[in-house]
């Protein structure tokens, strides 16, 4: 069961090679064995998971089987799941048992997938190394002295360590793609609005998107078939005809035009990583793709723009955490002001507080035009860059992250160094475009990912292009030794 793809698991369940309960037990045992060493999960509830598995087995027996029925999926602890503790990696929500299901969880429940447990993450999704979680660092199964990336570090570590066959994750500035790259996985951030944000704890509302974290593009496609779709409960959710992301996944890619942005291959990129990316490009050439040089001239501005917009929206989104109706409340206080200020001082970690402060500052009187408004304008410039680029190519290719998994503690004290982890991914979120990362090689035995960025609603194409690559290479099959 360990190395089976979602498709294979589904077929085995259909052919009754094993049941969902057995499959779930298998992964729960893996958790027992390995979770402590990598700390990928915040909440595991065997009874709940097995109860769901039992229900799924009945669904299968009744002939009511979908692709993901009976398959245990790890859920990032950012998705509200009714009756489950949903902490978002924060002390602020340590005592919060979600009173409702997010739409994403709802969709998995509806097809009979099994909730394997809630994965660890950077607090309130703010981070690129999973070192800001209230529940401790997550360790990268490839080398447990290194970080798995973030904020979806727990989901990445869980899948990389084969503690779960697949996981959900979220991406605001790269939080799916960067951990996917650092952990040798395939992760997809869909077009903004394709997956409902209802019930997904908000960090930066205009940038957040949920997506799958899997071993292969094909698995991601299966996950997307469940996760995507219009939701009337989310005003920013797109209304369009539902797609089947598996239909064209094997289509040939001859004649595909791949754009290589020259800005992605400048000084900041480590030569060894650059080499791996070039190997990837060559692989695509062999497969019949045409390589075109393109330019994203405003890409360097994506980091400052992001670090205005995201904290600004976050500072407002996190105002609801005040100890009044749910969540952490400080123990001693004499008046309301003290209750607020101590609750938020004690309930939030340092990085979250920093970002709230920055966000509050850039929105404050006198600064709105210079910062927030300016950032939204440059955001449009960045978006226009992509529009122009897509006039000359079908898909953009580049690195996912500037480094491989780095040692725990390495960048934590210097926020700016940490923020540079997202230099290749942030512009995609600002433009709202879909982006995918997949394994393309190893450097010092650690995974390196290659990123594909597509035009709006081109997920099927991205998954197809990635799948063809994976059919012709073997990087996505590699696993860290201790977790084989």
């Amino acid at each position: 069961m360990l190395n089976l793809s979602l498709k294979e698991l589904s077929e085995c369940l259909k052919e009754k090679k094993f049941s969902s309960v057995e499959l779930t037990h298998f992964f729960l045992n893996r958790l027992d064995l390995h979770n402590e060493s990598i700390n990928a999960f915040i909440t595991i509830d065997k009874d709940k998971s097995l109860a769901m598995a039992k229900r799924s087995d009945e669904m299968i027996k009744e002939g009511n089987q979908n692709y993901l029925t009976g398959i245990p999926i790890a859920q990032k602890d950012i998705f509200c799941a009714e009756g489950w503790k949903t902490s978002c990696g924060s002390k602020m929500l340590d005592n919060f048992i979600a009173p409702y299901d997010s739409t994403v969880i709802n969709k998995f429940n509806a097809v009979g997938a099994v909730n394997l447990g809630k994965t660890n993450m950077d607090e309130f999704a703010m981070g690129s190394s999973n070192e800001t979680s209230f529940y401790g660092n997550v360790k990268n199964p490839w080398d447990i002295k290194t970080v798995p990336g973030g904020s979806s570090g727990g989901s990445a570590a869980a899948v990389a360590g084969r503690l779960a066959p697949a996981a959900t994750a979220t991406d605001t500035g790269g939080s799916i793609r960067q951990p996917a790259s650092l952990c040798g996985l395939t992760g997809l951030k869909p077009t903004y609005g394709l997956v409902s944000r209802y019930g997904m704890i908000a960090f930066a509302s205009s940038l957040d998107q949920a997506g799958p974290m899997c071993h292969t593009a094909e698995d991601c496609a299966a996950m997307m078939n469940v996760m995507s779709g219009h939701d009337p409960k989310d005003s920013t959710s797109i209304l369009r005809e539902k797609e089947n992301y598996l239909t064209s996944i094997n289509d040939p890619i001859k004649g595909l035009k791949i754009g290589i942005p020259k800005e992605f291959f400048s000084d900041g990129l480590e030569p060894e990583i650059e080499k791996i990316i070039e190997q990837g490009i060559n692989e695509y050439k062999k497969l019949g793709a045409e390589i075109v040089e393109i330019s994203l001239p405003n890409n360097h501005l994506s980091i400052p723009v992001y670090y205005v917009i995201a904290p600004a929206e976050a500072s407002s989104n996190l105002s609801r955490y005040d100890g009044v109706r749910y969540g952490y409340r400080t123990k001693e206080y004499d008046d309301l002001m003290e209750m607020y200020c101590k609750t938020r001082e004690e309930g939030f970690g340092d990085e979250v507080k920093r970002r709230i402060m920055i966000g509050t500052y850039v929105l404050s009187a006198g600064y709105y035009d210079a910062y927030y408004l300016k950032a939204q304008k440059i955001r449009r410039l960045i978006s226009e860059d992509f529009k122009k680029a897509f006039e000359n190519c079908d898909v953009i290719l580049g690195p996912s992250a500037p480094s491989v998994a780095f040692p725990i503690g390495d960048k934590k004290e210097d926020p700016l160094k940490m923020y540079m982890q997202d230099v290749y991914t942030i512009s995609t979120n600002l433009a709202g475009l879909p982006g995918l990362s997949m394994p393309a090689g190893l450097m010092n035995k650690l995974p390196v990912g290659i990123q594909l960025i597509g035009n709006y609603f081109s997920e099927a194409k991205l998954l197809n292009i990635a799948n063809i690559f994976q059919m012709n290479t073997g990087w996505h099959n590699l696993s860290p030794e201790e977790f084989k």
Partner: protein
Amino acid sequence: MEWEVVIGIETHTQLKTESKIFSGASTNFGSEPNAHACLISLAYPGVLPVLNEEAVNCAIRFGLAVDAKIAEHSIFARKNYFYPDLPKGYQISQFELPVVGEGSLSISLGDENKRIRILRAHLEEDAGKSVHGIEEGKSGIDLNRAGTPLLEIVTEPDMSSAEEAVAYAKKLHELVQWIGICDGNMQEGNFRCDVNVSVKKKGDKKLGTRREIKNLNSFKFIKQAVDYEVNWQIEKLEDGGKIKQSTILFDPDSGETREMRSKEEANDYRYFPDPDLLPLVISQEKINTIKSEMYELPSQMKLKLVKEFGLSNYDADGITSNIDVANFFRELLSFKVSAKLASNWILTNLFSRLNESNIDIKNSPLRANKLAELILRIEDKTISNNAAKKVFDEIWDQDEKVDDVIEKLGLKQISNLNEVEDILNQVLQDNEAMVEEYKSGKDKAFNALIGQVMKASKGKANPGQVSQLLKDKLTD
């Protein structure tokens, strides 16, 4: 020293919708605390707002009623501040681009008319309530009201006295009920006014510093508060003091205004467009549809009543004084009752009864269809006006058919000319002296003779007919 008063008013009207502006929770008033606090009202992690179409429709109706421009594109913005009755830590409102632009409302004081300019009106959500007195040193938060749709209507500082302020508030109060966007129940907090008051020396171009009196929910309080505040400001300035811009509350018990503690002190609301909501686009078609479904406004209806139906100005004012009276009137007309009679019966008989029992016309035990039956019997001469009054009293709160009551009380007019003539002849015979008096020039005797005929017919003769017959007979 002559002082001028400058007043601007911001009114929060709670819109008459079934559900809240951004969620499907009920807007019902008076339920147990937090019974209508849904996931979104409680601002749980991950919840998102979705816009109630009816709230937008209400805003459009208001814009049309005050001749304002309705924005094709408007934006919802977050107003960020911390307060326990504000669960998200921000209020979803509109800032730079409101849904309704500049318009105006006319008020009349005595014979004078004045046009009050409306600067804007925007949609926003209401906050919850804090309840005190549950425990010492604590407050209880009830979020039932959190998320109720509000339309905030802002005027230019065009009013120059407490009377004008009250006249505007009253006119606006009537209008929002007339167009069906607000219940206007001020005790329930449906309609709340924040009144900005400043004073300046007569002739000064520059406006004085204003103080904002918050949450006035009765016309009486508006008058009292403004009067007190104006005096207070003038006294302060005449003493050589300065007015500090601040937010104040009116205390009805003492009749005084006082500064609020902390809440509004230089609060930086950090407005920015709400990323969970998209631009609100209102098409001209939508506006046209709503316009076509709207009833005419009071001023339009009044004009029609005077010009087409020949009602007096005074009566037309009475009929258009509020939507319930207007609707009652319309209903009477739908039964083919003449406008003049309908208006008379409403404004005199019906009103007097309603006032006696202290009921609104909406709750009148005598419904329009019944009253219509009665008036039609006057119009077709079955009964006289006087007789009708008796029937009115009977059917006021009894569920009897008008014709049955007429029968029961024997009030049917005698319209058979021969019958009347017989009675008349008898009366003339029995009252020769009176006839002589008339013939010798005493006109009063004429009416006295009619009176005798009415008496003899036990009120059932038609006075008009009697008068005609008598005239004919006596000029023989």
